[in-house]
């Protein structure tokens, strides 16, 4: 677990820890607003149907019911649709339902039980329509279409030469295209060409805190207490949907009880606002975990890779055709498709690349962001094929990878930033821990066979051209409040961002508190996702802290009759030569009254670059390495992971223990998907959309030996952090593809980036 040494001196203590181990931590789940009603949602039993009529009269007449909303209410909104870039999901189904679980109506009542009873009294007449349940069915000639007319929104903006299309064909939500060189010509010259098709399964986020929101509408003001990961993105959506200026929308965030992307972007929030408006009272909607399983998934997909290799094992070109199952509505598919398409080349060197990626509409649960955002789908297919090719050519998969890995500093793709981690070194460390070189890669004893496999993943971290703002308030006592919009979702943002401020201000860590998030007063960011918390928001916090420090020193210099340059700040004391001047009395003497707050502001914008394929070079790279030894019982088919080693380069960690936690947690999610976890469709509805039948990894599933390494694979580099990616390794000879993941809440930094 020894990564590069932390730039920080003080020991790290999880600031959210005491709240969380004593039960004092408050989540949106725990929020209660005076006079609030409780809502429940009626969902479609059909995968695809027209809504002929909805009668809510009997439901509304039930004692205790205050309001019911349907598509007719949604249709009257200024803009009833949401989604990322492409907006096609109505607040409540309008005229048509598109998957089993689609929201048809909602009721607000004095309690949940009454709301449930009322749902049974709603009469909906449907006209069943033929459904498309798979990618193949959706793309077949003459297939039924989910949308008859173009929907709102724009394709994702990309750099020059790339293709980004909205709704290019029936049932295709969007298309991404990337080419470098002439892939056909290079393939034709290659000694070997391998074409393989990979199917990627559908899983759910399974965050334990369900989707939960409370809305209150008071005059012009719309307030939401939301479990959302992205308060400011949500604020914009609510403003647009309800046609209100954004300064009349106020979002409160609390601790988030797990998200993994499942609480990114708009979900149930506008529906709760609509109910609160109609009811004239605050409304709480807390979905059940069963309903969360019907709210969002990770994209299933079909990936066809055509890869050329020279006879001495050098990769030449790759053509990829990627179809992701976006489900019934856009959600974040448009972004996911871009990331999958862009990451499909893996961390390897190519003479030519040609990629097409699509999100296909089907009558299934919408798919959206999930930890790593398309990276897992890409790595799964890419790394699997790398192993298959190595085996076909009789080359050791380790050697094959090493021969083709991008070198430190080499750009991921033309116009993008250089790889900032020594990928071969990281792989070496994993290989060493696994004992890959010491033992046979595969062996058999009786009906049990063992095999070892490796994998590398890489993700562009921090978002694309991302930005964030932050405030640091220094109170007269030297205690500080850090204010930023990165929500604490378990990644350790509270601690990490506080620590950055504490170090910048030379204050004890426990003098710093991470402020409550309220869009009325908290500075803006783009949302808690894309691994940007430490590196993007962290820089904004660091700058805000430095700004507040400069103000303090200016103030002290004025009081002491010297220049700020002569002063140093240490534990809320100003030092000038051998003399120490405590600040608290100095502030009290000058300001009197309640004293004074030094309010520092900081911001960061990652520069855009028209030459970068995704419009901005990656801020940093998040490599992952995986090694696994797996035992398969050839009689029963039971697969057991004997030894799992996952590695990630977290650079200089601001919060090393959080980094380890992110790697271990993410890798176990991937482990689950590799071996057993799947949201299965048998027919028109998911067959296991219940907590009991949807099987996630348990403690008893842990590999016998599970190690996490954070190799010293990098070089000194500017501040950066990482967030979750999920990238697969492939354990030989089994269907199991172990997907490592990575980590929110770590910073990579060189000391010179921090004010001394």
């Amino acid at each position: 677990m020894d990564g590069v040494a932390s730039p920080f001196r003080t020991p790290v203590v999880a600031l959210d820890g005491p709240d969380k181990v004593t039960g004092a931590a408050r989540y949106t789940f725990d929020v209660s607003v005076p006079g609030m009603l409780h809502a429940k949602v009626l969902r479609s039993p059909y995968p695809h149907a027209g809504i002929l009529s909805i009668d809510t009269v009997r439901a509304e007449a039930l004692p205790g019911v205050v309001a019911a909303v349907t598509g007719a209410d949604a249709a009257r909104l200024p803009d009833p649709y949401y989604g990322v870039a492409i907006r096609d999901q109505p607040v409540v189904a309008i005229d048509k339902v598109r998957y089993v679980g689609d929201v048809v109506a909602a009721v607000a009542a004095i309690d949940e039980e009454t709301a449930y009873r009322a749902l049974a009294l709603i009469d909906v007449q449907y006209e069943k329509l033929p459904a498309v349940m798979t990618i193949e069915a959706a793309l077949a000639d003459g297939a039924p279409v989910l949308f008859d007319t173009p929907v709102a929104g724009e394709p994702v903006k990309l750099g020059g030469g790339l293709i980004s299309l909205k709704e290019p064909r029936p049932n295709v939500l969007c298309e991404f295209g990337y080419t470098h060189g002439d892939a056909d010509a290079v393939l034709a010259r290659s000694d070997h060409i391998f074409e393989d098709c990979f199917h990627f399964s559908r899983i759910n986020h399974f965050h334990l805190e369900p989707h939960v929101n409370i809305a209150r509408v008071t005059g012009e003001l719309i307030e939401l207490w939301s479990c959302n990961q992205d308060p400011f993105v949500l604020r914009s959506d609510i403003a647009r949907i309800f046609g209100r200026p954004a300064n009349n929308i106020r979002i409160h965030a609390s601790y988030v009880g797990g998200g993994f992307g499942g609480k990114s972007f708009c979900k149930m929030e506008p529906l709760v606002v609509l109910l609160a408006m109609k009811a004239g009272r605050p409304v709480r909607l807390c979905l059940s975990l069963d309903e969360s399983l019907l709210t969002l998934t990770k994209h299933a997909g079909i990936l066809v890779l055509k890869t050329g290799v020279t006879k001495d094992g050098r990769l030449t070109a790759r053509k990829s055709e990627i179809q992701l199952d976006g489900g019934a509505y856009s959600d974040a598919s448009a972004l996911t498709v871009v990331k999958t398409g862009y990451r499909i080349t893996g961390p390897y060197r190519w003479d030519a690349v040609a990629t097409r990626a699509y999100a296909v509409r089907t009558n299934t649960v919408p798919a959206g962001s999930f930890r790593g955002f398309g990276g897992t789908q890409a790595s799964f297919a890419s790394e699997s094929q790398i192993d298959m090719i190595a085996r076909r050519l009789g080359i050791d998969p380790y050697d094959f990878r090493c021969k083709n890995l991008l070198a430190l500093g080499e750009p991921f793709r033309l116009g993008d930033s250089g790889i900032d981690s020594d990928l071969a070194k990281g792989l070496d460390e994993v290989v060493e821990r696994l004992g890959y070189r010491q033992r046979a890669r595969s062996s058999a004893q009786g009906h049990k066979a063992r095999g070892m496999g490796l994998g590398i993943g890489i993700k562009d971290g921090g978002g694309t051209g991302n930005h964030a703002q932050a405030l640091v308030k220094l109170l007269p006592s030297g205690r500080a409040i850090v204010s930023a919009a990165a929500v604490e979702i378990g990644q350790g943002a509270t601690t990490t961002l506080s620590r950055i401020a504490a170090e910048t201000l030379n204050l004890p860590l426990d003098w710093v508190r991470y402020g409550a998030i309220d869009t009325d007063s908290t500075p803006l960011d783009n949302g808690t996702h894309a691994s940007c918390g430490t590196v993007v928001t962290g820089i904004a916090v660091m700058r805000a802290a430095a700004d507040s420090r400069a103000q303090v020193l200016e103030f002290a210099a004025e009081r002491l009759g010297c220049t700020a340059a002569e002063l140093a700040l240490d534990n809320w004391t100003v030092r000038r030569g051998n003399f120490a001047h405590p600040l608290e009395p100095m502030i009290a003497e000058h300001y009197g009254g309640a004293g004074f707050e030094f309010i520092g502001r900081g911001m960061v914008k990652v520069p855009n670059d028209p030459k970068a394929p995704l419009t901005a070079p990656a801020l940093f790279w998040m490599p992952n390495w995986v090694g696994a030894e797996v035992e398969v019982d050839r009689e029963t088919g039971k697969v057991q992971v004997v030894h799992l080693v996952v590695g990630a380069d977290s650079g200089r960690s601001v919060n090393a223990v959080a980094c380890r936690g992110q790697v271990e947690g993410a890798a176990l999610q991937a482990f689950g998907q590799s071996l057993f976890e799947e949201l299965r469709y048998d027919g028109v509805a998911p067959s296991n959309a219940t907590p009991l039948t949807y099987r996630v990894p348990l403690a008893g599933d842990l590999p016998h030996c599970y190690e996490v390494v954070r190799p010293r694979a990098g070089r000194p580099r500017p501040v950066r952090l990482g967030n979750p990616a999920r990238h697969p390794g492939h354990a030989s000879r089994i269907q199991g593809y172990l997907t490592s993941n990575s980590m929110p809440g770590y910073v990579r930094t060189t000391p010179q980036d921090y004010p001394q």
Partner: protein
Amino acid sequence: MTDTVEIAVTINGRVHRLTVPPRRVLADVLREDLQLLGCKIGCDQAVCGACTVLVDGMPVTACTTFAFELDGRAVTTIEGLAAGGILDPVQRAFLEHSAFQCGFCTPGMILSVKALLARHPEPDERLIRQWLNANICRCTGYQMIVEAVRTTARMGSG
């Protein structure tokens, strides 16, 4: 069928006389009637273990335990674990090992571990993992939790 049931239940050392409808579950009594919000409800069907509390020292899922069953029994919730503000050894071990991330499963997990160590003061690795099967954690990957349990057991103060 009676509309309500009278019960006397000791919660975190204090006796509460409550009048509850027969269908009311413990989780709702704790959260809504007594504002003991550390009892989290995840799946609401005794699968995830987030709502685990101790009844006479045994772990139960509060989401599927009827309140009337608790007449004459003693319930411990996460709020009752830190006596006089001093953390329980299990809580301390969870803190020291960072055995939590989002924290939603943590109260139930800690109480479950408390029950494990009360029955098996020196659990082996296998037993720890098996016991923790009753509590889903989607964030941590369980390793740090297992380490926290090992540490508490070694200190002999579960």
